């Protein structure tokens, strides 16, 4: 495995405060493009806060504010003139719990594209097929696209959510927040398979509570603890010869 060449997101001295308490402390990290970065750490380590900072979803939380810089392709996404709505179309997110919107499978997938102003039926049809195929769901739902997304199983709903993210044509980065925490092993395998294909086109950041999952799919791994980034590096290194004692204890299951 080669060392990362292109930096997609550069995080520089980034901190997040919630009600004056610091949720993230002085994080500096580079996320290379077309690779999967796994983020591991015990509950409360700030890994989800970090993920939600990457598409500025933390903006929705009252009394939360960020300091420092986050550069996406060299541009600071926290600069006052940066368009948040455009950012979220480039940086898509998959949540821990699958949330199909209460509308048809088709409408779920075209939610993003419609917001971007795509109206032509043929173009939308093409997006739906491409996205559902990329999320390994097409074969299961191609005959019932008008059925409500809520009637799918949990695993299918999560793949529908992935398809919904992939449907955005502006998409460059995919954020995943413990996307398999509620899923069966087969659905998990399908999501992981999709990710390894998708990294050819996108940059992927995967937060997971399952260290084995990070070891399986992540190219690089970052270990968070109590709002601090302890260490980051190639996945093999983190899981075999980490620099920090705490990292070693966590990945070998001795705490957390």
């Amino acid at each position: 495995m080669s060392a990362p060449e292109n930096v997609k997101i550069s995080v520089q001295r980034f901190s997040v405060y919630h009600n004056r308490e610091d949720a993230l402390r002085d994080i500096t990290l580079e996320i290379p493009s077309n690779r999967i970065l796994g983020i591991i750490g015990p509950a409360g380590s700030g890994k989800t806060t970090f993920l939600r900072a990457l598409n500025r979803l933390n903006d929705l939380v009252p009394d939360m504010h960020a300091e420092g810089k986050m550069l996406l392709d060299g541009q600071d996404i926290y600069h006052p003139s940066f368009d948040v709505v455009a950012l979220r179309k480039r940086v898509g997110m998959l949540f821990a719990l699958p949330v199909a919107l209460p509308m048809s499978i088709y409408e779920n997938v075209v939610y993003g594209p419609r917001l971007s102003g795509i109206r032509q039926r043929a173009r939308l049809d093409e997006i739906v097929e491409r996205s559902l195929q990329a999320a390994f769901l097409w074969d299961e739902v191609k005959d019932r696209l008008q059925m409500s997304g809520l009637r799918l199983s949990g695993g299918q709903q999560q793949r529908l959510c992935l398809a919904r993210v992939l449907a955005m044509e502006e998409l460059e980065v995919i954020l995943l927040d413990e996307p398999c925490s509620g899923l069966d092993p087969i659905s998990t395998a399908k999501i992981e398979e999709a990710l390894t294909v998708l990294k050819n086109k996108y940059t992927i950041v995967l937060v997971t509570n399952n260290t084995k999952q990070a070891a399986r799919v992540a190219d690089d791994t970052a270990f968070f603890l109590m709002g601090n980034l302890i260490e980051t590096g190639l996945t093999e290194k983190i899981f075999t010869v980490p620099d920090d004692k705490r990292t070693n204890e966590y990945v070998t299951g001795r705490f957390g």
Partner: protein
Amino acid sequence: MRIPPKITQAFAVSLLGFATLLTVVVLLFIIVFVLGKGLPGVTWEFLATNPKDMGKAGGILPTLVGTVLLPVMAIAIALPLGVGTSVYLTEYTRETRLTRALRFGTDCLAGIPSIIFGLFGFIFFVVMLKMGWCLLSGALTLAIMVLPTIIRTSEEAIRAVPNAYREVSFALGATRWETVLKVVLPNALPGIVTGVVLGIGRSIGETAAVIFTAGSALRMPMTAFDSVRTMSVHFYILAREGISNQNAYATAAVLIISVLLINLLSYSMMHRFIAKRSR
């Protein structure tokens, strides 16, 4: 000595059952009584002709029109204002002392007797704005009266929409407004419809506020500035002035049936909408 649980249980069940029975019986009695006295007088001619002789003879066509127009206009005014207010309170502001004060204010408004709204409408719309007794004065007054109901029910409905839906929508690059339009309002619709039905119910049976503001003319209203008489005002006048008890009962029967029909219609529309979304 302790009473065995079996006995307390039986006692509680029979007490609750009795309360339910009493409520239903009283309601049914009123409906059956009014329909029984009124229905014989309800003919096609009664519905479709103008009243004669102050309502002693003839039909109730203008009051039927008034009863439809007045609540429809009131809801048309109150719905956008009420839903707009509740969207603003829930989606665009944080919970502050001001929003709590606004909510307290609407709750107080909901409890004010309708005659107060009538008096206000009379002084403000009819006299001060020189609009006179007319459909529009009545509709505006009723709109103010049902506004608190619509705001509160819409607000509850909007709050009940899962926050996860909003997050998904934002994460897919929607603005707040797009999220409100595409996710929040469609999912809050059943609750909003409940508010509208309650509002229609309250305004269709309203007498005091209407008689003060829309007047009681028996002509067919042609514009929004014509005075109009609703069915409830009509049978109030018929009964009070001793014009015709038979026609008062017949009008009341028509009113009861209309209210039932409106409720059935709104709920079936709502169920069709929900069924369509979860198919």
